[in-house]
Each structure stands twice: as structure tokens, then as C-alpha cells.
């Protein structure tokens, strides 16, 4: 009772909400790059919020179902097909034994989430199945490997399919180019002119973008600010090395560091940023903690009102 991996694609990883409680030992959290898409997929199947899913980056993944299952797909539209029939994301589907489920390439966004009723059944490492390749932690075998051809990803057989979909108004807009930022950390070391530049200019996602961080290209800021005493790095922290090009630190970020930081993008903004590809353009927009909390609450309420 499992999916068999026929083609592994570029990067498919087992993820749950992340590995918490170990940052002080230098172990990062991992977890879904687009947290809201992940939460929606489990909610569509009435799974527990932390149930393990597959995060599919870019596509190229092909799976054979070895038992009946109810699945949900959320996040990016990676031109998924079930036995060659196109599937749209943000809803549930019934899968029969022998079915072929494939994810081709990005149509909209970059990362899709595949959830199965009851969650994928993997043994947690340090309390989580979140795959962190660099740390050799989590995933199917606990060693941090991405999914590979011939892998068997177990789930509980399910024949209680229920048609569910995310309300249209609640589906995030990955074309949105505005990423909300809370000014914090060393923001006062940046000049008013630097902040003006940071919030008014467009930044382009560079080729150096991965689960650890997104390096942006655009107008340089704060290149005269010296390094600081190393301190803990929060999710979404925007660090600015000497070349003045901001790097947004995400799920697999290093836990401490000594580069100055202008602030942090919000958790929701991190999800939207994670759906952008090299060459995509974004703008950083100033927000407050209160606004960020309200925005999160709105999304969490939409998820809890489903069904």
C-alpha cells in the first residue's frame, strides 16, 4: 500500500510542518516551503495538520499507486495528470490501484504538495519526517535523501473518497509580487536612503535560490555595514552581505549567522516567495507585526472553515 516512484524528477521531498526543538544544537527546522499550501492539502483530506506529504519542486515526478487512495494536490500547478487526464491543484482526487500520477513542469508557481488521506507513513527522525538534505535528516529512510526512482512511499489504503476543493477566493495568488517585510534586527543600521531603495526597487530572484535561502538581485543596499556578533536567524530573515544583495533565509537556513539583517519577511510572504523561480521579480513592502498576525489569522480561519 504505497506509491512507487517511477521517475524522481528534480526534487521531491517528504515534509511535515518541520523539526522543532533542535535549533539550539544547530539543526534547522526544514518543513514546507509554502506552509499554507501544505496546510490546505491536509485540511482537504481531514488529516492532522502535521501529516507527511511530498513537496514537489519543478516537477518530473511520476508515481504508480499500488493501492486505492484519496489524494489532495495544492500549491503550484505543475501540470499534474492522473492516467494522462489533467488534474488541477487545490482539490482532492480518488486514486485507484494501478493508476499513474505524474507532475510535468511548472505552469503556475514552483512547488506543489501531494497529500494522501492519513498521511505518508514514514518513521520520524528527531520528532519529524521533514527532509533536510544538507543535514542528512528525515525523509523516507531518515537519512535526508530526496525521493529516488524505485522508492516505495507507504500510505494507508483508503476508499472513502470525498470531493473537496479550496474556495476560489482562498487560493493564494502566486503572481502577487509583493512580499511583506517586518523591519527588525539591524534595520536601524541601514540608512533611510537604503530603506527607501529596498522598498521601492524591484528585486529579481537569482539562480541561487533553494530551500536554504533566496538570493535576490537588484539595487544594492547597506554595503558599508559591518558584520555583527553572530546571532540566531529567524525564518524569513533578510541578510545583507557586503555586496548589498539581500538573501532571504527560509526553511533550511543556517541557525546562526553574523551578517546584518534588515528585517524578516512574514511566514505567508515566505510561502509566496517560495513559489517564485529564477528571473521572477518581486517587491518588498513594509508591514507591521499586527498586520502580519491578522493576515495569518485570516488564512488559518479559512482553512478551519473548510467543509
Amino acid at each position, binding site marked *: 500500500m504505497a506509491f512507487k516512484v517511477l521517475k524522481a524528477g528534480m526534487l521531491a521531498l517528504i515534509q511535515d510542518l518541520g523539526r522543532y526543538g533542535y*535549533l*539550539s*544544537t*544547530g539543526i534547522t527546522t526544514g518543513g514546507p516551503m509554502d506552509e499554507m499550501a501544505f496546510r490546505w492539502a491536509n485540511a482537504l483530506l481531514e488529516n492532522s495538520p502535521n501529516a507527511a506529504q511530498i513537496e514537489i519542486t519543478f516537477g518530473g515526478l511520476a508515481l504508480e499507486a499500488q493501492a486505492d487512495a484519496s489524494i489532495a494536490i495544492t500549491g503550484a500547478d505543475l501540470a499534474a495528470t492522473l492516467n494522462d487526464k489533467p488534474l488541477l491543484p487545490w482539490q482532492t482526487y480518488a486514486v485507484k490501484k494501478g493508476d499513474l500520477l505524474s507532475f510535468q513542469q511548472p505552469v503556475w508557481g514552483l512547488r506543489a504538495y501531494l497529500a494522501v488521506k492519513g498521511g505518508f507513513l514514514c518513521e520520524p527522525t528527531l520528532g519529524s519526517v521533514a527532509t533536510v538534505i544538507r543535514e542528512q535528516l528525515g525523509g523516507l529512510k531518515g537519512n535526508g535523501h530526496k525521493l529516488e526512482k524505485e522508492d516505495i512511499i507507504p500510505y494507508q489504503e483508503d476508499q472513502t473518497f470525498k470531493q473537496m476543493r479550496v474556495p476560489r477566493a482562498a487560493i493564494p495568488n502566486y503572481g502577487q509580487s509583493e512580499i511583506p517585510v517586518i523591519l527588525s*534586527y539591524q534595520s536601524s543600521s541601514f540608512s533611510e536612503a537604503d530603506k527607501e531603495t529596498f522598498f521601492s526597487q524591484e528585486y529579481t530572484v537569482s539562480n541561487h535560490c533553494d530551500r536554504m535561502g533566496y538570493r535576490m538581485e537588484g539595487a544594492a543596499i547597506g554595503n558599508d555595514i559591518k558584520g555583527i556578533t553572530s546571532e540566531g536567524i529567524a*525564518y524569513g530573515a533578510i541578510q545583507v552581505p557586503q555586496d548589498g544583495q539581500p538573501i532571504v533565509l527560509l526553511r533550511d537556513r543556517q*541557525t*546562526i549567522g553574523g551578517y546584518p539583517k534588515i528585517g524578516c519577511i512574514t511566514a505567508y510572504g515566505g510561502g509566496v516567495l517560495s513559489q517564485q523561480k529564477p528571473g521572477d521579480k518581486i517587491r518588498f513592502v513594509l508591514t507591521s507585526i499586527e498586520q502580519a498576525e491578522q493576515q495569518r489569522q485570516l488564512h488559518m480561519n479559512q482553512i478551519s472553515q473548510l467543509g
Partner: protein
Amino acid sequence: MTQSHVSLEQVSDQACLIRFGDDINEQTADQILWVTQQLRSLPSVQDLVPSYTTLLVTFDPDRTQGSALHNDINRIISSLSLDSSPRHQDRHTVVIPVYYGHEVGPDLDDVAKHCGLTPDEVIQRHSEQTYRAYATGFAPGFSFLGNTSAELHIPRKSTPRHKVPKGSVAIAENQTAVYPNVTPGGWQILGRTPTELIDWQSDNIGLIATGDQVRFKAISKEEFLALGGVLDGF
């Protein structure tokens, strides 16, 4: 120095940073460790990252709002005093055996030259004092140990190595550390320990926890090999 030097800032929608002034010293480190211990029991706290002069507190936004956590943190900070030292049982002394040999410590001669010492004097300075683990990060189980003797201060290598062997004992600026695993790295390598720095089965994961005292003990090549040390890796 009491709580008047301590400040709290919410840095994101999921994290607060407590700052304990600008000075890196044992007293500050003790206070950070004490506050870390107090905060560990709060259910809404997800993770704590103590460092040299700061403590990052990450929280679950679905269990608490930042403002509610602020109150809890401020209550703990206000009870901070000069006597706020961490519980004794939470500060271990860890002894790390090190083989300071040229085949595993390729920077020993450069360090000696830079510092105006002989290689033997470098080894002696490095292994004669007790260090404090000020922070852990960079890689799992990588603890920043300070401060080294002023005679041993040296910049990082101008070009980092692509591959630093597991167990390498190295120095940079006023810090020293052990590489728990093979990683890229730019510190000056003096030797190698046969001791495993990471124990996945233990609660701390790392052999060294932030706040611990650490000593290095020079061992011979024979002892190094007998303890399971390996010589290759570069």
C-alpha cells in the same frame, strides 16, 4: 549588569530576539543560559537559539500572539539578577582528546609562524585553558568556543577549504571549534579528535551544549589511532 541592559524585540511574526548588551563575557553568557532555561518551560515556545549576546525565541503563532509572549519574557527578564546563574547540572565540562599532528593539522606551521610561536607552543596554548561554549550553529553540533589566548588570534583562511575532515580542531579570530562532520570551512586546522561530537540518540544531540566548559587534551598519534581516529580525509 542587571536587566536594564536587556532588551526585547519581536523580529518577525514568529520570533523574538532578546539582547543582553554588546559585551561578550561569562556573566552575559550565564544570564543568557538562565533565561533560556526559564523560557524552555513555556508551551508556546518552539525553539531557543542562545548566542554570544542574544537569545532568539521562536514561537508557534497558532498557540500565542507575540504580545502575550512578550509579557512572559519580560516577567522573566525582570527577575534576572546578578545571581542569575544557570543550574549547575546544566553546565558540563567536556574534555576533547586531540592529536595535534601535521598530517591532521595542516595549518599548525602557518599558525605558529603568524603568531610568532613554535608549533609546540601553539599546541600548549590551545590545550592549557578552559573554554566556554558561547553558541552552537553553522552546522549541527558545531560549537563556538571562546576565548582563545590572545597569542593565538588569527584570521580565517583567505580561501576556505571545500572539505574539512570530520573531527578537525581549528581556530579563527578569538574562537576555537571542532568540526563535527565533513563540511566546507575556513578555520585554521591544528589537529583532530577521534571523539564523536554528535550523538543522535541523546537529548542534546551535540556532545557540547551551549554553556558547557570545554578542555582539549593533547594525545599521541598512537592514542589517537587506538581511540578510532583516522588520519586521511584531506
